[in-house]
């Protein structure tokens, strides 16, 4: 153990001098809550400050983004924020796209943090989330769901991660009116996408010391499509023998999830089932206001976001709960390898919620967002 101790002291010394060296042999510190996501890009010998694209969003977006920025400042996290706005504009050729500055910034920084975006009903353009997904090929949606001490729900032992394929499946958007009164909606499953999501799921499980991956399907009814998905998962499972692989029908998962959520670990599934199950799990731990989420894309792009709505009724009134965005930001820190800071901020956040003294309205208290934020900042600073 002496060698390890020397090595870590040396690393810490170098870190303080501003040089961060990646150590492939040491396993990253992971919390069961926000796991590390292995990124394929090489770590840079930067001065330690990473630039991250911040998309504040609409409604309560700006205020919770400010809250997160404040907490990060208090924690002295080496993050520099680049704020960008994402509104749909019509590009050349008539296709809707996000503003080029936003795209450039994301491509350069590779990491993004996004607040809630509003989806206008009849604006003629697709939802912003859909645009972002298409632009950066965000194929995996990761949602770790862990019961939060201090925010009581009838389910106290939840600790699972839902990984959802985000590009195809039932949400491919291909629908036709065949004859008057008959509509056909196409669910698309491809080998490539299924393999990609399965590989991601197993990588995630391995990097975060998760013991098993469960594929959720309905292959008894949708024999070919879910059958293909399942086959790909089985093939990928062959390469990851250290992680246990099981398959379970969607209805069995729902049934058991509501009775005993502790039996599940990592769940991987196509788009629709993922949508329903991830929201079900979010409901188990307390709703979208406390659930973090990350979207992983091709070419190393990762956008972390809060999945709740824009809450226009409380926008600007300093009543919003920044927990979801904060926990997503912590997930982001882990993704970048900044485990120390991630742990600090996460612990501070959970401590504040456990104390129950300065909770926002949706968590059961009646404090303001700024008070909640200030409390977390104080805790973070006290930890140093």
């Amino acid at each position, binding site marked *: 153990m002496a060698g390890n101790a020397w090595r870590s002291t040396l690393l810490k010394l170098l870190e303080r001098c501003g040089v961060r060296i990646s150590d492939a042999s040491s396993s990253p510190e992971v919390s069961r809550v926000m796991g590390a996501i292995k990124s394929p890009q090489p770590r840079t010998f930067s001065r330690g400050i990473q630039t991250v694209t911040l998309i504040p969003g609409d409604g309560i977006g700006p205020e919770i983004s400010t809250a997160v920025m404040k907490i990060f400042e208090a924690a002295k996290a080496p993050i520099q924020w680049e704020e960008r706005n994402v509104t749909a504009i019509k590009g050349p050729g008539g296709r809707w796209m996000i503003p080029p500055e936003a795209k450039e910034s994301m491509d350069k920084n590779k990491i993004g943090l996004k607040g809630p975006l509003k989806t206008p009903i009849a604006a003629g353009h697709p939802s912003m989330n859909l645009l972002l997904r298409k632009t950066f090929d965000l194929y995996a949606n990761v949602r770790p769901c862990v019961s939060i001490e201090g925010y009581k729900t009838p389910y106290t032992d939840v600790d699972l991660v839902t990984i959802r394929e985000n590009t195809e499946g039932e949400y491919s958007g291909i629908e036709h009116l065949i004859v*008057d009164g008959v509509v*056909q909606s196409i669910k698309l499953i491809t*080998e490539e996408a299924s393999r990609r999501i399965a590989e991601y799921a197993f990588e995630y499980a391995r990097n975060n010391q998760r013991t098993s991956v469960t594929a959720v399907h309905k292959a008894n*009814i949708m024999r070919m*499509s879910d059958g293909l998905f399942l086959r790909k998962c089985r093939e990928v499972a062959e390469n990851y023998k250290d992680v246990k692989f099981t398959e379970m029908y969607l209805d069995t998962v729902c049934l058991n999830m509501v009775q005993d959520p502790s039996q599940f670990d990592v769940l991987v599934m196509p788009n629709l089932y993922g949508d329903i199950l991830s929201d079900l799990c979010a409901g188990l731990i307390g709703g979208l206001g406390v659930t973090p989420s990350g979207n992983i894309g091709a070419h190393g792009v990762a956008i972390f976001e809060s999945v709740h709505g824009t809450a226009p009724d409380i926008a600007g009134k300093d009543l919003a709960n920044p927990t979801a965005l904060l926990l997503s930001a912590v997930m982001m820190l882990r993704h970048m390898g900044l485990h120390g800071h991630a742990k600090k901020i996460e612990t501070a956040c959970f401590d504040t919620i456990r104390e129950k003294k300065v909770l926002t309205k949706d968590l059961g208290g009646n404090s303001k967002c700024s008070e909640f934020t200030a409390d977390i900042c104080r805790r973070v600073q006290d930890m140093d």
Partner: protein
Amino acid sequence: IMATLTKVLKPILGSQLGNTAKVFGAAVNSQRGKPTYTPPPAKYGGRHTVALIPGDGIGPELLNHVRELFRFCCVPVDFEVVHVNSASTSEDDINNAIMAIRRNGVALKGNIETNHTMPPNHKSRNNLLRTSLDLYANMMHCQSLPGVHTRHKNIDIIIIRENTEGEYSSLEHESVSGVVESLKIITRNNSLRIADYAFRLARDKGRRRVTAVHKANIMKLGDGLFLQCCKEVASGYPDIEFDSMIVDNTTMQLVSKPHQFDVMLMPNLYGNVVSNVCAGLVGGPGLVPGANYGRDYAVFETATRNTGKSIANRNIANPTAMLLASCLMLDHLKLHDYANMIRGAILTTMNETRLHTVDIGGQGTTSEVVQSIMRIIQSSGPLTTEI
């Protein structure tokens, strides 16, 4: 119509006419416009015949208990047993079963296992049964039982699920190697039919609100059509409130605030998810019975359609769901007295005697529960056979 049919058939069938014309006439005339279903006429001296499909897993043993109980209570129902071998690839077995159900009009079934490693032309037997008989409505009534410990109390939700189309059309093709398309079909006729069923049921049972569950923000045409049909039908029932909710929000609300739901109406796949979530909320798959209604036929089974392979033949399965399903069947046959007697005994065992099987936290075996039910029936009065 009955008179003309009799006149037509008399020369052909001669004196053996008897019941035939009436049965034929009834089936043809059917329920067009009639609000309630008339059960098939009892044959052979007041005894009904019901098709029984044991299925796989825990199906056979639970249905044996049902038969035992019916014999004990002297219920005037005879069972025509039809076995379906889930391992065979030929469809003869399931076609025999379908014919038996057509003959009898009513069936009680266990779940038939579907081996999903078989090629796609081997369709799910249960699905085949539902679509051939056009059992378009699946009704499931989830009620919290006071004797069962659950996280949420006092849940009372009726779930009505479209049973024949939607994602379960089994229409799939591989356009290019590695790219598979699965079609989800939504038709106006079926959506109107199921919405009408839901609202009629809500009115009959005195329910106040129907919630349609959908994902029309993403599947704009498909679920959009479904929602539109529901709204159309809702306008014809002004006394019943109608609202809609997106499926992911629904599941989230179900696990946090289930008491806001009354009657829920949805297409096939969401019905699967929501019914399993609700079954889990009230205590598990062993407690809730389900019914599949069509225009001419009715099939009763457990709500969550589990095969229960892992607990088969170990005498630990919970018989409640299957027994309550058989009570639903008795209600359907208008044998209400027997239905209420058996149901009362089941609920007494569950809530007062508290004899629970393993899945709801007790230690009893299946046979002990059934014995207890029989004892309660015997002590409450009517003439029964010996235990």
